[in-house]
């Protein structure tokens, strides 16, 4: 497993270059209030083992292959100059040979082969999102920036948030919390309406083990945003992904509850583990250990969920919908 994500300051500052966008998903009801469009950025400074969007980890473009969609017409093989495609390959694409020329993509009639990550301009993103404004307005929704980690592209993100807000859209950022604070304060904070902040693991060693980086900066950033929220300068919602055996342990959840109370944030959103992602790594040629484990294939039983919620409720922390 690679943990080679660079977390030094320079890397976190981001660039003004257009980032790669994985997808813009319309009609989301799970990523903030109302009906929303979610812009997924590619690239993340963390590398969580349970990541539901494994294709969002790397910053560069990738190719994915969905065996279920393939109609075995072999048109892609004729189009591939590198000879990287064959049903004999374990995941169809020989990623050693593939040089990401993407000539197979238009040749594939069924969409089984897809390019993951496309450059999009601020205007391109906004044009697509704004089409649904009438739905946002009727439902109190708006646009959500998610990923990956949008703050890896802080200047770009800043411009995007400002134009979206300028167009009358409610803006929401979903972040893993690992970002450069100063850049955030100047570029994002003045413009963003709401931040959903993921808190995964409080224990530093475990965080490094499961998320591939230290959590020191994340916790520091959380404290900072919590203070701003307490002053009413920011609408902040901490979110905890419940991953059985990793984040959803008694010890970790208690520690998170304590952290929230310390920072005067008496509410939290719990994200129940969804096992439907476990086929996704294979599409981009990744066979990791966690997604193939038996335990990763199951939903959390509702009595366990109740128990987890009680850990927070006991301390007077409200579970939001």
């Amino acid at each position, binding site marked *: 497993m690679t943990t080679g994500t660079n977390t030094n300051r320079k890397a976190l500052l981001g660039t003004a270059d257009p980032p790669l966008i994985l997808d813009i998903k319309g*009609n989301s*009801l799970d990523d903030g209030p109302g*009906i929303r469009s979610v812009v997924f950025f590619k690239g993340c400074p963390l590398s969580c083992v349970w990541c539901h969007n494994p294709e969002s980890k790397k910053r560069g473009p990738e190719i994915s292959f969905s065996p279920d969609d393939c*109609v075995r*017409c072999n048109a892609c093989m004729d189009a591939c100059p590198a000879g990287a495609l064959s049903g004999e390959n374990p995941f169809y694409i020989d990623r050693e040979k593939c040089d990401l020329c993407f000539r197979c993509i238009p040749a594939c009639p069924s969409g089984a082969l897809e390019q993951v990550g496309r450059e999009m301009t601020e205007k391109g993103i906004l044009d697509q999102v704004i089409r649904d404004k*009438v739905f946002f307005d*009727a439902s109190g929704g708006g646009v959500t920036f998610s990923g990956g980690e949008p703050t890896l592209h802080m200047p770009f993100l800043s411009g995007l948030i400002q134009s979206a807000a300028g167009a009358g859209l409610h803006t929401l950022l979903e972040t893993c919390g690992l970002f450069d604070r100063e850049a955030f304060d100047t570029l994002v904070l003045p413009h963003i309406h709401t931040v959903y902040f993921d808190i995964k693991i409080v224990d530093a060693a475990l965080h490094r083990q499961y998320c591939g980086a230290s959590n020191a900066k994340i916790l520091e950033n959380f404290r900072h945003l919590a203070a701003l929220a307490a002053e009413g300068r920011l609408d902040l919602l901490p979110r905890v992904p419940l991953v059985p055996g990793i984040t959803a342990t008694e010890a970790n959840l208690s520690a998170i509850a304590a952290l929230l109370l310390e920072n005067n944030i008496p509410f939290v959103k719990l994200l129940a583990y969804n096992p439907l992602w476990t086929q996704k790594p294979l599409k981009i040629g990744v066979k990791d250990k966690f997604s193939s484990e038996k335990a990763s294939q199951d939903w959390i039983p509702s009595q366990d969920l109740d128990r987890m919620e009680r850990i927070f409720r006991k301390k007077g922390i409200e579970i939001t919908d």
Partner: protein
Amino acid sequence: MFQSPLSENRPSPGLSPTHILVKVLLKIMAACFNLRPSLRKSLESDTGWIDYSAAIKTRSGSVSACIRFSLGRASVTGTAPADADICLVFKSDRQVRRFLTASPTEQIYMILKNDFYTRGNAACLNLFVYCISLLLNKQQVKMMARERLKDRKQVLKSSPGPGTGLSEALKARAEERLTGNREDPGVRYLEDPYLPEFSLQDFPRLAGFLDSHFETRAEVCPELPELMTEWHRKNGYETDPGGKAWNPVLRKGHCYKYIMENRRPFIHANDLIAGTTTTKEVGVVVYPEGHGTMIWGELFTVPHRSLNPYDVSPGTREILHHKVFPYWANRNFKEWVREKYDNPLCQQIDERFAVYFDWKSVTISHTIPDFPKILRLGTRGIIAEIEDEMRGDTDEDRTATRQAMILCLEGLETYSRNLAAQASGEISGTKDPARRAELENLSRICTRVVSGPASTLEEAVNAIWITWVGVHMESTNAGMSLGRLDQWLQPYFIRDMEKISDPEGQKRYIRHAVELIGCFMMRCTDHLPLTPDFANYYFGGSSSDQAITLGGVTPEGDDGINDMTYIFLKVTEMLGLRDPNVNARFTPGKNSDTYLKRLCEVNLITTATPSIHNDRAIWRSLEQYNYAMEDLRNWSATGCVEPTLSGRHMGHTNFQMISLVAALEMALNNGRHPLMDWELGPRTGQVEEGAFSSFDRFFKAFEDQMRFLIDQSIRYNELLAEAHQELRPTPLLSTLISDCIKTGKDVTRGGARYNSSGAACIGLADITDSMLVIKKLVFDDRAVTFRELKEAIDGNFEKNPGLHAMVTRKVPLFGSGDPGAVAMANRITRFVHGTYNSYTNYRGGKYTAGFWSMSNHVAYGTLCGALPSGRLKGKPFTPGLTPQPGASDSLLDNLRDVAALEPENMSNNIAFNVKVVPAADESRERTVENMAAYVASYFQLGGMQMQMNVVTSDMLRDAMAHPENYRNLLVRISGYNAYFVTLNRDMQRELIERAEYRI
């Protein structure tokens, strides 16, 4: 230019062994009738022998035989004579042999799929089937039972145990109820307009009725056709007893009066409403001059069929077979046209099922009577108005028409009086003092109405019901609609409430009003349309489609939401009936969010009703016709969704169902229709011969074919209209549609102030997608040649998985949010609308186009090959104009594209289905808010109509296998509602395969 079916042109290869088989079987049949006295007796009608001949042949002539019944004797000949009353023409010997061993259901599919077609009198076909059934009904019934068992095993295989908690989850929906704000200015008395305090358990009377609704088997009722036949046998049909030609309107007036005076007045047990449409608990009404004889062939088997079985008592069978049907075999709409116009091409096409179905072969009915008028004036007042008009008018025709109107009103009055007498007659035999009081009250009510004006809510509701029964004794129970009952009843509710001063008394009265409206809606379920088994597969599960319209604005343009609006919604929520079909109007900028949210909540609880219309888009669609604004504001949904200007408009809004896709298939085949194997349309060019050098040329070929089909279907409608004027004028209805009294013209002859005829055009999304694929892949990108695409279509894409993947994945389809797709859909609707609009109907109004499909998107799909859109052979089209499930993952793309269609081209309205599923962990409040947000946004973008099915495919699958847990599971097909478990399998599967969006 047009050729007859191929049968006429093929050389005879000589007689085949099948021929001998057929001849032997017919001889056995003849021998049975000749030798067995009981069978011979069945060839006798009340007035003499039933003579007819039935022939069986193949297109090539390899089989050709005929059985003739004459003067009570049967004989067989080895050739099919040209003058046989009915001839079954089979594609080939193979189909004949299959037919001989097929079950009744398989035979229906054979006729749908054009394995054979019939020429000649359809009533005689049914008589022939009846005669076969006389011999074989025991075997037929066994066969049907076997079929049912096999089917049951099959569905149980896929879903052996009932799904856990699914049906319970549905039932539990009604247990949680939101509270509402009192913000609508028209709501005067309801403290919480959502009335969350009430549930069905609070109304044992209604709960009992509902239970009986689900548990009672419908029964064919012979009362109406028997009375009709009696009167006509005595007084003549074509000529009066003096030998003078009858004025058809006057004849109808006399006959109607006789019916109303002699039908039995029933007060249904424990009911607050007097009168019934039939003599049965749930009756199937037989209209002999309409499609009544279609049930002739099934009189033995109809109780045993899988879909919508009805009971038929031996007595009823006797009456219908011996007394009624022989009299009407030639006196019905279809046969009248066949005889007078020599079975014209337009009729032949209709009877092949794959292209269009003209509803006038069954009925007109689709309109909204002026109920406020009868409430205001009573029959006495209306008669006075008619007499006023008669004074000084010497015109014979107008006078006869007005006389007929008076006769009808008198008949209605008599029926009402008979009900009053019946109610008081029942008092003495009733022990329960509460019920005695109710009967006394009913007797009082029926004495006052319908002859006089209504003065209380109870009187008004009873007057509407009695009138409703009345119009159904005049024309078929299919699509006749009730209109804006909340608007029309509110004044009576207010008047009653004003008389009550104490708050407790007011509360009690509101409860009573809910119960009364509940009784009314339940009463509307006391009859079913006569559905031949064939129609179960062609139409499927439709009841009478008695649309009620709620909400919107008043004729003056003010917010129309009132107490009665919410009372009707409460009843709709508690009963969850498929029929009446509840439609809600929403006027953006006038109607409140509270109201919209309540519509969504009722939709969520009932899973499928009401359907919701955007007033502003409807008005925009109707602007072109110069209707008065106050009348536009007063529109009501008719049958499924179609707009009628209440009480002033005869819009026969479902004059036909037409498949747009048939025209595409014909354009792809140079005018030949593949399934019918018929060189039917104009020669517009052969794809294989490179006839189309541009997309526009191909589009023109489609237009030419469509124009041809529309033209033919309209011709048939006009001929059937003439049949209606002769066979079934509707003078009672005419008194309730302005300006018939004034003009002295029956509504079937153009007496209404506004006239139009509305079509339902089916397959818009399939056509649009197919055109998009042809345009992009063949002409724009040149990714495939037209010939290759055509070859793939002809082979059902079986050898072209790559091409199939390309057409389904690589072309932005209608509903994907692509402006090009919307432009294509608008191009098609503009053309279709323009074509209809170029015709003026026999009543002087315009033809209009709508894009909804009832259930025919399934049947027409069955009869259609693969399409350029990638839809495979035999699969259903999409319901109404709903985008296909693969168009987009986002519901918003669907909503945006449908909303972008130009209402001007869709003035007979649309049906846009959306299947939404609330997330299990979402609160009721948020789910309802989300639903309301979708509707509000869609309307803001210009959308006309939308209807939500709030069910999961898992629930539907579970219901398919375990219908016993889902007797009341309501689904919206396309415009109308049905109980899912009563639908045929194809339709059930279509509902399951619809796109499902989480909300």
